């Protein structure tokens, strides 16, 4: 089983390092020929506008959407979660492409600018008892989860920061920036 990591832009090497530590084979996906060789896909953190444009320019948007519809597990962190969302709060910027696979609304830069970026320990039932250190960087929020969506994690005030819809996973934070492998292992078991 090869784990593809979308490597157009963003912190894809951090995901790669985490998976290699676990012992999972990885492949950087930059072109459609790479996508054909992978069984799962991680969309890393980065700038969703830049990644979205490159997805279209290099003919990856449709093939990823198609694979996602057919059941390939996909995990989006931060920018990746925005690309997975079917809806964007307050409108997607004009011409901004998206995979639109998950029945969720993503609110971009929901906490504000960089000065509002933060770390917090969250209890996430799906990962066991120990709290997870989560890192939010100019992060989005997940809103209006559809009936097929399971909420995996919320902040203390109830706002949604991780969700799952079958084989699709969206997190607003960055497990790849911490030493904790549990979210990556969780994705490998989907």
């Amino acid at each position, binding site marked *: 089983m090869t784990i593809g990591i979308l*490597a*157009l*832009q*963003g*912190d*894809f*090497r*951090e995901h790669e390092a985490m998976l290699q530590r676990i012992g999972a084979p990885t492949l950087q996906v*930059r*072109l459609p020929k790479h996508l054909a060789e992978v069984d799962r896909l991680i969309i890393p*953190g*980065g*700038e969703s*506008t*830049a990644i979205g*444009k*490159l997805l279209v*320019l*290099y003919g990856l948007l449709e093939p990823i959407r198609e694979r996602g519809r057919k059941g390939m597990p996909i995990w989006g962190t*931060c*920018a990746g979660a925005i690309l997975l969302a079917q809806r964007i709060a307050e409108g997607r*910027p004009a*011409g901004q492409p998206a995979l639109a696979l998950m029945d969720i609304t993503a609110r*971009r*830069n929901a906490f*504000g*600018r*960089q*000065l*509002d*970026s*933060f*770390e*917090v320990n969250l209890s996430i039932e799906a990962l066991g008892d120990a709290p997870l250190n989560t*890192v*939010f*960087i*100019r992060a989005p929020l997940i809103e209006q989860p559809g009936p097929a969506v399971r909420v995996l994690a919320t902040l203390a005030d109830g706002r949604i920061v991780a969700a799952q819809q079958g084989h699709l996973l969206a997190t607003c934070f*960055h497990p790849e*920036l*911490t030493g904790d492998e549990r979210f990556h292992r969780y994705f490998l078991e989907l």
Partner: protein
Amino acid sequence: MDKSTWTTKIGLAQMLKGGVIMDVVTPEQARIAEEAGAVAVMALERVPADIRAQGGVARMSDPSMILGIMEAVTIPVMAKARIGHFVEAQVLESLGIDYIDESEVLTPADEEHHINKHKFKVPFVCGCRNLGEALRRVAEGAAMLRTKGEAGTGDVVEAVRHARTVYTEIRRLTSMDEDELFTYAKNIQAPYELVRQVAEAGRLPVVNFAAGGIATPADAALMMQLGVDGVFVGSGIFKSGDPAKRARAIVEATTHYNEPEIIAEVSKGLGEPMVGISVSSLPQDKLMAGRGW
């Protein structure tokens, strides 16, 4: 909930990797940059080529101009403070800017001290020409680095020199035994603890972009192949004939830096590049990279 931790500061730079950060002087240019796929913009009043041409003292930009650019785009916005000018940095932080560049492109305000960047909540990027300078900046709290190159020239030669120097020094460091690290740290005037970390990890403790003289898609890909994490393009885009097209081409070449066919494709018909000044023709006192201590 802890805000502005070291992890969030270096983390934003991680998210910018593989991307292009573009100098812009108006909200309109910022929108063109975002539309072309820039991962961030650097808001400033004059691009380095104009600072070079017009001379005089180059300072922090007008806050209203920076705020206008922050309003115009959803990607992160950076702005420059003069080396050592911690009040300009305080002002930029109060505006809610996403990253401050303590930059040699502006006229230095202090010829001995850099800003103590640990005192700030906002993260800083700083320039470097070699490993010693890079690690001195990290010791002062820089959460991101960029090799300096020679800004405003369109000549990539100094960017190459500085990137090669940094990565050669890192490779040399990884082959040293523990005893040699102490003397090496002393010789490059960098804190021993950071030198040891680099020797162990085989890489810098923070993200490092290239800057200063990148004007074409091939220049950007060259810097990526030399090992940098991304590129800053200053005067190269908006001093060229077709900024939108060139901006997008540089974005594509930065992502696909190992695919010469793609770089060839995006390099076709880009129109006039910025005119450029050969760095070797510049007198010593016109070089910006020497600023910083």
